[in-house]
């Protein structure tokens, strides 16, 4: 075997070793790399309820209410829905029907209440989707959808 072939094999081994290690690492840490949980995850008990965590989903249409500084709205992943309470300023892109990621915890505002489905947020971030279009196109898409 020539020296060059030797080096080629070494580099090949290095690349495959690194990718194998990466694959295993990603598999092991997959859960920890989730930036947020979905309402379905909460329902299925996958979420560390005692601690602070993030939920993400779409703000349900016609669910937003504001009372002074307190906003309440429903976050849905189109399967399950959770109610979110937030005292603070919402980002510009916060809209009904758009994505949102909220940090907080499932806590009871008052003892003895059954509040499995109330999420008290300390921070709300808007999650933009991957669509970019001028307003005319958005209107056209919307009217096409409502015709269906």
């Amino acid at each position, binding site marked *: 075997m020539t020296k060059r072939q030797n080096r080629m094999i070494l580099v090949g081994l290095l690349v495959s070793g690194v*990718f194998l290690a990466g694959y295993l690492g990603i598999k092991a840490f997959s859960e920890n790399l989730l930036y*947020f*949980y*979905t309402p379905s995850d909460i329902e299925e008990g996958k979420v560390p309820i005692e601690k602070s965590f993030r939920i993400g989903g779409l703000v349900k249409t016609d669910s937003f209410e504001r009372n002074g500084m307190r906003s309440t709205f429903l976050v849905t992943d189109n399967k399950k829905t959770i109610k979110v309470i937030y005292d603070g300023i919402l*980002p510009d*892109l916060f809209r009904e029907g758009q994505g949102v990621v909220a940090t907080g915890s499932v806590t009871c505002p008052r003892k003895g209440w059954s509040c499995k489905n109330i999420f008290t947020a300390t921070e709300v971030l808007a999650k933009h989707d991957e669509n*970019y279009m001028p307003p005319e196109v958005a209107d056209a898409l919307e009217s096409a959808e409502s015709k269906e």
Partner: protein
Amino acid sequence: MWKWIQRQASPKVFYQTCNRLIPWFFWPFICLLTVGLYWSLVISPADYQQGDGYRIIFIHVPSAILSMMIYAIMAVAGGIGLIWQIKMAEVVAKVSAPIGAAFTIIALSSGAIWGKPMWGAWWVWDARLTSELILLFLYLAYMSLNSAFDNPRTAAKSSSILAIVGLINLPIIHYSVKWWNTLHQGYSVGTGGIKDTDMQIALALMFLASILLYALLVSIKARTEVLIREQNSSWVQEEVRSLIS
């Protein structure tokens, strides 16, 4: 074929090729950048949700793609240098690193500027943003490792191994928005996420301009690097003398 490659990879021919290519990269870059910026800032319509703020993608997306592409080029050139011991591949890898790091910084900072008004946060530790930040650290580590040795061959050898190990980060960055829930949105390019033709054209122009900018910067920096490395050879001394006079 092999003979031809070897000839091209000799320092002198490589230097001359860089010299010849520079104007061919420079003028198309200027043209594409001018037209691309006009198309991005004037011709393209405003977005239905974000208004004019979305226009930052015309800088952000090309820089982010380039930051990953340049890393891949750097690692492959480093690998070629390791296996075939082609010195000019080592030069390309070395001079690519700071350019790639600059594109990474542009991608990260333009994203932060966009994120503050749109998301409500400059920075979040989601998988996409974190892996892109790791890419910046990889570039910085590569550069410091490369400059830690006096002998350019030893430097190229060890830093190339680092570059190849860091390759694993590229698929992680690319697929992060698919594998995990991230605050960063999913793919807009190639999925029909950008629905307006003018927006698509503007983005394509800016992407091509960025590639030309990279090619231009590599040629300029590689030229200098070759002169430094080959400073003891007679053709370099002649060349420098003719440049001075």
